């Protein structure tokens, strides 16, 4: 299946792009607990890279090491060609960070917080553009403490972007966004990436990762268990298609070859996973027509990232 079914691919112009982030054998230990156990990652410049994994998998530890907040226990880390542990003002000029939570002065207004942070950078984006991009233009004069949780989160996103960073770190960026704000935020992030910004994000929203990320890695208990394009991670070698329908009652038994092909029956819902969607669909519809049975709510779709992710996490923990 071609990768474009899953989202955009990075334009390489025929050349191999450089890596904005390169990590080899990264380890992090807190006291006796090792939360990162030898991680390798490469984030191509200008791409959107999603780091997935259950709570406590080590996502935030990994991203905060790359941001320069935490020191690593072992391994090689290169961010924009620099070691983030030694990164000074010049390094922070080139990155933008959206933390998992907080960081806003409650008694200042939206415009005051944004404007103050803009002055710390040499190439700030225009205030109006930032406000418009996160739909806070009308709240410009509102104090932060009067904003809703979603509005605060949007302000934090604007703050991360306000210095025109080469590399943008987003830790669970759309947590608490309503669907409209979520879509607008992703459109903006896609535009930034298209203009050359590299984006490294963590998320637990799988369909979001699937549609927006060029590449992703799944982190479970401090180990990368899968890495690649969304198509590669979903496929994991076997490209599965899911056929699903409801059987009107009373219905005859499914033919044996379909049951063997992997039909899951829950109540009157039948779900068949197949590597040969064309043939299986013909078998199912042929059987249904022959029996005079209606296949209600029939859907045919590719296996989702969420399903692949659940299997990866379960098998990694088994």
């Amino acid at each position, binding site marked *: 299946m071609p990768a474009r079914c899953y989202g955009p691919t990075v334009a390489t112009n025929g050349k191999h792009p450089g890596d904005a982030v390169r990590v080899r054998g990264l380890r992090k230990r807190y006291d006796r607990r090792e939360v990162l156990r030898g991680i390798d990652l490469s984030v191509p410049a200008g791409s959107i890279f999603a780091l997935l994994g259950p709570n406590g998998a080590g996502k935030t530890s990994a991203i905060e090491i790359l941001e320069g907040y935490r020191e690593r226990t072992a391994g090689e880390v290169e961010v924009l060609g620099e070691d983030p542990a030694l990164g000074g003002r010049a390094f922070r000029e080139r990155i933008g960070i959206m933390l998992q939570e907080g960081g806003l002065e409650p008694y*200042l207004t939206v415009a005051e917080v944004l404007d103050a942070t803009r002055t710390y950078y040499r190439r700030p984006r225009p205030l109006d553009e930032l406000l418009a991009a996160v739909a806070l233009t009308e709240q410009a004069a509102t104090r932060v403490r009067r904003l809703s949780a979603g509005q605060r989160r949007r302000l934090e996103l604007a703050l991360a972007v306000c210095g025109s960073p080469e590399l943008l770190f987003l830790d669970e960026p759309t947590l608490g966004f309503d669907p409209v704000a979520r879509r607008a935020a992703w459109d903006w992030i896609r535009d930034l990436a298209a203009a050359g910004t590299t984006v490294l994000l963590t998320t637990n929203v799988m369909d979001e990762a699937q549609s927006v990320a060029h590449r992703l890695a799944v982190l479970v208990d401090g180990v990368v268990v899968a890495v690649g394009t969304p198509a590669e991670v979903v496929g994991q070698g076997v490209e599965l298609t899911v056929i699903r329908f409801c059987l009107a009652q009373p219905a005859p038994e499914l033919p044996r070859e379909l049951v063997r092909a992997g039909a899951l029956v829950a109540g009157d819902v039948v779900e068949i996973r197949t590597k040969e969607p064309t043939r299986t669909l013909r078998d199912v519809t042929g059987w249904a027509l022959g029996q005079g049975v209606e296949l209600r709510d029939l859907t045919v779709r590719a296996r989702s990232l969420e399903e692949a992710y659940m299997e990866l996490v379960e098998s990694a923990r088994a």
Partner: protein
Amino acid sequence: MTGLTLALRRARLENRAFWRNPAAAFFTVVFPLVLLVIATMALAAPLGGSEQAARFYTPSMMAFAVVTACYTNLAMGVVLAREAGILKRLRGTPLPGGAYMAGRIGQAVFVATLLAAVMALYGALVHGVAVPLERLPMLLLGLAVGAASFSALGLAVSTIVPDAGAAPALINATILPLLLVSNVLVPLDQGMLATVAAVFPVRHLADILAAAYDPASPLAAGAGWRAMLVLATWGAAGLVVAMKTFRWSPRG
């Protein structure tokens, strides 16, 4: 943008937020002023007249104002900003850490200066108690050294506060007893408690400011310099501790 410009901008921003925060503005600004007015009225009789009371309380409330603005207010502000993730976010921007701290200190010093000026005016206009002109340099130097030292100590104490919930109790526990025994809130010039207080910085700041207001004070003869030295030494120690242990992120 240079570090100095950034520090000044930070100070202005902190100041704007300060006046919009009712708790900070009340305890730091209103409380010392109200205390000064009440003390000069209520304690006029026991202290031998309202002029006597004003002669004691005008400089002592200036000391109190310096301590609340530069120590209590600064430490509370830094702890709350740290626990809210504000310091962590700023740490991820090109803003130099020193510019942030200078901005915080600048805001505290501004409030302390404002309060001292209002108190000086109150003492002079309401009670006819003023600083003799030849002692004005002593008053200003004492205020400056006191503000610098208590700012450094405020930054230092912020590092031992584990979280936002513990901040008011811990910060006040380190300073209220000293304010009580250091001839500031109540006259307490002699005895064991006064001897203990002489080890700590609050008493020395109070002594310098009181001496500036009292032409007969023996401190002016040279002991003023000793008090300044003790105060500055405490400040320097606070600065060393602050620089070594300052945290930009909440624990964990």
